[in-house]
C-alpha cells in the first residue's frame, strides 16, 4: 500500500508541475498551448546536457546535489526564455485572430521543436545517470518499503516548488497582477498593469515549472527523449481540466487524482493505464465540464 502511495505521489508531482503551465496559460488566454509539452521535454534535455558537463566516464566530477541543482536551475532559465520567445513570435501576432489560428500555431510550434530536438538527438533517448546522481544507497526505508532517492527528490523538489509558486502568486506584486489580469484583463490595464508583460511572465513561470518537471522526469525515468512531452502532456492537460482549468490549486489536485487513478488502474489493468486518464476526462466532461474546482463563466453578450 505504502508503495502505491509513493508511486502516486511521484507521478502526481510530475503531472502537477507540468499541468500548472497549461492551466496558467489557459487561465489568461483561454488557449491550449501545445508547445508546452516540448518546453517540458527540452527542460529534460537541458538537464541531460548539464549532467554531461559533470560526467567523466562513470564518474561525477562534482557533488551530485550541486549537479542536480544546476540541472534544475539552467533548465528553468532555458525553458523560460524559450517559452517567452514562443509567445512573442508565434502567439502574440494571432491574439486577435480567429480561435483556430493560435491553436494551429501552437501545434506547429510543438511539432517544430519536437523534430528539431529529434534530429539533433538522432531520434534516440539520452541516458540520465540517476544511478550516479542519486545512488541506491540513499534510498529511504519506511518499514519494509524502500523508497528510491529519485522519488524522494521528485516529491521534495515539487513540494518546494509549489510552495514557492503559492508564495509568488499570493504575495508578490507580479503574482497578484497575473491573477488580476486573468480575472479582468481590461480592468487590470486600467490599474497600469502591462498586459503583455503579464502574459510573458505567465509563459515564463509556467515554463520554469515545466523545466523543473522535465529534469525530474529525466531523473525518475533515467532517460529523456524527444517524444516525452507528448504523452505526458496529454495527461498533464487532463489533470488541469480535471481540477478546473485556470485554477492552479485545482491543477495540483487534478494531478494527484489522475496519478492515483492511474496507480490503482495499473494494479488491475496494467496494459490500459493510458486509457484511464482519457476515460476520466470523458466522464468528467459529461458530468462536470468546468472541472472539480472550476466555475462556469457566463458568456458576455
Amino acid at each position, binding site marked *: 500500500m505504502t508503495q502505491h502511495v509513493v508511486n502516486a505521489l511521484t507521478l502526481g508531482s510530475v503531472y502537477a508541475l507540468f499541468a500548472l503551465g497549461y492551466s496558467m496559460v489557459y487561465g489568461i488566454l*483561454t488557449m*491550449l498551448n501545445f508547445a508546452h509539452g516540448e518546453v517540458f521535454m527540452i527542460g529534460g534535455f537541458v538537464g541531460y546536457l548539464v549532467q554531461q558537463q559533470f560526467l567523466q566516464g562513470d564518474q561525477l566530477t562534482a557533488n551530485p546535489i550541486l549537479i542536480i541543482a544546476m540541472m534544475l536551475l539552467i533548465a528553468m532559465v532555458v525553458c523560460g526564455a524559450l517559452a517567452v520567445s514562443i509567445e*512573442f*513570435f*508565434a502567439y*502574440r*501576432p*494571432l491574439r486577435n*485572430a*480567429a*480561435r*483556430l*489560428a493560435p*491553436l*494551429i*500555431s501552437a*501545434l*506547429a*510550434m510543438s*511539432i*517544430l521543436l*519536437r*523534430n*528539431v530536438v*529529434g*534530429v539533433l538527438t538522432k531520434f534516440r533517448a539520452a541516458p540520465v545517470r540517476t544511478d550516479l546522481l542519486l545512488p541506491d544507497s540513499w534510498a529511504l526505508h519506511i518499514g519494509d518499503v524502500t523508497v528510491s532517492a529519485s522519488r524522494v527528490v521528485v516529491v521534495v523538489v515539487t513540494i518546494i516548488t509549489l510552495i514557492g509558486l503559492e508564495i509568488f502568486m499570493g504575495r508578490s*506584486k507580479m503574482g*497578484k497582477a497575473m*491573477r*488580476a489580469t486573468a*480575472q*479582468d484583463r*481590461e*480592468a*487590470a*490595464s*486600467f*490599474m*497600469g*498593469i*502591462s498586459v503583455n508583460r503579464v502574459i510573458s511572465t505567465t509563459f515564463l513561470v509556467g515554463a520554469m515549472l515545466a523545466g523543473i518537471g522535465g529534469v525530474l522526469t529525466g531523473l525518475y525515468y533515467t532517460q529523456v527523449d524527444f517524444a516525452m512531452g*507528448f*504523452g505526458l502532456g*496529454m495527461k498533464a*492537460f*487532463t489533470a488541469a*481540466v480535471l481540477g478546473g482549468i485556470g485554477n492552479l490549486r485545482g491543477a495540483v489536485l487534478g494531478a494527484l487524482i489522475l496519478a492515483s487513478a492511474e496507480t490503482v488502474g495499473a494494479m488491475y489493468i496494467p*496494459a490500459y493505464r*493510458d*486509457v484511464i*486518464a*482519457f476515460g476520466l*476526462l*470523458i466522464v468528467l*466532461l*459529461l458530468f462536470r*465540464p468546468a472541472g472539480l474546482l472550476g466555475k462556469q463563466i*457566463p*458568456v458576455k*453578450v
Partner: protein
Amino acid sequence: MAESFNARAGGFLARGLAPVTRVTSRIPIQFRYAIFALGVVVFPLLVQSSYWTRVGVTVAVYVILGNGLNIIAGITGLLDMGFIAFYAIGAYSYAILNSAQLGIHLGFWPSLPICVVIAVIFGAIIGIPSLRVRGDYLAIVTLGFFYIVQRLILNLDGLTNGPDGISGVTRPSLFGFVIKTPIQYYYFYWIFAAAVFFISVRLLYSRTGRAWAGIRDDEITASSMGVNLPRYRVFSFLTTAAIVGLAGAMLAAFQAGVFDKNFSLDELVAVYLILILGGSGNPAGVAVGALAYTFLGEFLRYFPSLVQWRMAILSLILLVVIILLPQGLLRARARKSITSIDEAMGAAPSALSSTSEGADAPSIIPLREKTDPAHAPKIGDVLLSVKGLSKSFGGVVAVDDVTLEVREGEILGVIGPNGAGKTTLFNLITGIYKPDSGTVTYRDDDLTGSSPDRVASRGLARTFQNIRVFPQLSVLDNVMAGAHPWLKAGIFRSIARTGAVNQEERVAEAEGIRNLTFFNRAVADRKDDYVTALSYADRRRVEIARAMTLRPNLLLLDEPAAGMNPSEVGEITRQIKELRDSGYTVILVEHQMPVVMNVSDRIIVVNKGQVLAEGTPKEMQAHPKVIAAYLGEQEDCEVASKPSLVAGSPLLSLKGVEAGYGPIKVLKGLDIDVYSGEIVTLLGANAAGKSTTIKTIMGNVRAGAGTIEFDGQRIEAWPTGRIVSSGVALVPEGRRVFPMLSVLDNLKIGGYTTSDQAMIKRGIERAFEQFPILYERRDQKAATLSGGEQQMLAIGRALMTEPRLLCLDEPSMGLSPILVQQVFQIIQKINKDLGTTIFMVEQNASMALSIAHRGYVLQTGRIVAADEACNLAGDAAIREAYLGG
C-alpha cells in the same frame, strides 16, 4: 512590435502573391475547375512514370482527407485532432475485412460503407460527450483518442498485427475488373476525390454549411438564429469522421496493406498544413494545398541531407503561413447567389398568380403571406408575457422581478439609463441567460430557460447591441442564416440536392433578398459581397434582415439606430414602423430618444433592473420618476460653495479628440479642459461616447486625431501604465473589482505602478479609514461584496497611487439612492481633503452637477453644452440630450 513586424511581413507576402492572384482571379470559376480537372486527367499521360502516377494517387487521397478535415476545422472552426484516428480506423477496418488477418475477404464495395460506419460510430462515442458542452476541449479529447488508438494498433496484435501491420489486403475492383496498376488506381481514386470534393462544396453551400459557418464565426448568434449548437457540432464532427474513414479504407486498398506509421502525429500535422496552406474553409483551396504539400515533399527528396528535417521544415512552413498568410494560397470566396434581385422581387404577390415557363422561373418561389394592410396594425392578444423575471450576476442584481406583456402588432419601447438591465432582459427572453426565477411565456409555450435555438424556432428573432454578423459569409448568406429554422434540408438531402432542397434554397434566397430590399436596393445590390465590406449602418440592416428571414412574429431589436448618422436614423425610424405595419410585433431597446418616442406605441421604463413606469411616449417623457431616473432628483446647486478654479493652464486638456472602434467613430472632435482642483462632470445619454472619452484619456482606446495633454505633457500616445504613473487613476464603469482577489489585494493592485511602500501603506489605511466596512472584509473575496461596497473598493483602489486626476465612470450606476448620496459625498470629500482633481462621467445629471464646478454635455460624440455646473443644471440641453425634445 510583433504585430507590426508581422503586418509588414504579411503584407510583403501578400504583395508578392498579388500578381498571381490578379491573373488567376480573372479566370471564371468554372474554367478554373475545368483547367484543374484537365490537369488531373492528362497528368499520368504526360509523366509516363509509375512513380509519379503513384504520387498522383497520394494527392487524391490527401484531397479526400483534407476535405474531410475541412468540414470540422475549416468550416466549423473546431480543432479536431482525432480525424487521424478515424483515418486509421477506416484503414484498419478495411484491412481486417480484406486480409488473411481474420480470414475474411469481403471485397472493396461492401467494405467501404462498413468502414465509414465504423468510423462514424467511434466518432459518436468521442464527439457526443466532448462537443456537448464546449468546442475548445475537443482538441485535447480527440488528441487523447488518437493516442489511445495508436496504442491499440500496436497492442491488439490479433486484430491489427501490431507493429508489422497488415499486408496482402484485397485490391479494389470495378465490375469484376481488379484495379492493380498505378494508372488504374489514379483514375479510380480521382473519381472518388472529385465526388468528395463536390459533396463538400454542396455541404458548404447548404443550410447545414451555413449553420457550421455560424458556429465558427459566432456561436451565440448562430444559436439565436435557431442552430442547435451541440447537434451541429456533432454533425460536423461525424461528417469528418465519415470522409476520413473513407480515405483510410482507400489508403489500405491502395497500399494493399496498412501500417501504424501511416497514422502518426506527423501525418496529422501534414493534413493541417494542407488545409491551412491551401486555404481553410475552401474545398478548392484544400485541393491546391494537397498538391502543394505532396510536391513539396517530393522536392525535399532531392536533398537527402534534408530528409530527416522534413517534419521540422513542414511545421515551420505551417507556422509561417498561419501567421503571415492566414487565408492560405487560395482564399475562400463569398458565395455567388443564384437568384437575382429582379427574380426575387418579381416573386411578389402580384406575380405569384402569373404563370411563367421553365424550372427557374421566379414564379416557382412561393411567398410568405404578407399581412393585408387593411386589417393589419390592430393591437391584438398578448403575444409574450414575462412574469417576475430575475437574474443576478455575482451579487449584483441585473434584472429584478420584471413583469411585462407584449401584445400582437405593437411596438414596445424599452428604455432606461445605462446599466438598467435592458440587454440582460433581452438575453433572458431569448434564452442566452437562464433566469434565476420568473417565467417567459410566448403564446401558450413556456419558454423559461429554453435554449436560444428553441426560442428562435418558436418565432422570436433578435438583433444585437454590438452588431454580430458572420464575417466570413456573404451578405445574403448572413441573411439566409435566419432561414435555418424553417428550411428542412438535412445533410443527406443537401448532398443529393433534391428538387425540394433546390426549391427551398431558392425561396430562402428570394426571401433574404426581399428582406434586404426592405431597407434599400443598394444593400441588396451587394448581396454577394462579404458582409465585412459593408458600412456599419448596412451591417445593422443585414442583422435586421436576418432576423426577419427567421419569419418571426416578434422582433427584438437591441439599439438598431446605434452608430447611425442622422439621416440613417430617420430612415430606420420609419422602417421600424413599416415593420409593425407589415405584421411584426416589435420590442425595441434604443438610446436615441427621438427614435423610441417616435415609433413606440407603448414604453416601459426600466431602472436598476426593475420596471419603473409604463405608458405612452408622451406620458413617459413627462413622468417625474422617469426624469428622475435619467437626470436624478432635482438637487440644490450652491453656487457660493464653488469658486471658479479656471485659471492658468488646465491640468487635463483634450483638443479635437476623435476616437472609436474599428470603422465606428464614437468621438467626433472633443474639446474638454479640466483645471486643477476642479470637479468636472461629463453628462450625456447612453451611447453618447462618455465611456469612450474616459477610455481614450486612459490610453485604452487610441485617439485617432487630436491631442490630450496632462500636466503639460502630451499623453495620447502613452501606454496606460505610464499615464497611471504620471498621476491619473480610474474608477471604471461597473466597478470592475477583481472578484477572486481579496479586498486587501484589490487595493494593493491599485498601487501596482508605484514602488513606494509608504504610499501603499497610506493608501490602504486611508481606504480602511474612509470605508470601515472594507476593513472588516479585508480578507474576503471582492466577489462577495455588495454593489455599494464594491464601489467603495473601486474608489479606494483608484486612490492608491494618490493621483492628481481621478476619473470616475458612472460611479452611481446600479446603486440605491442612499448609496448614491454617499458616493457623491465621498467624491466631494476626496476633492476637498486630498485636493484631487475629479473628472466624472455620470448619468445622474442633477446629482453630478450638485457637486461639480463645471459640466460638459455630450451628444453623439460632440460637446453640445459647457458651462458652470449650476447654470447647466437648469439647461434644456441636458434634458434634450437625455430624453429627446
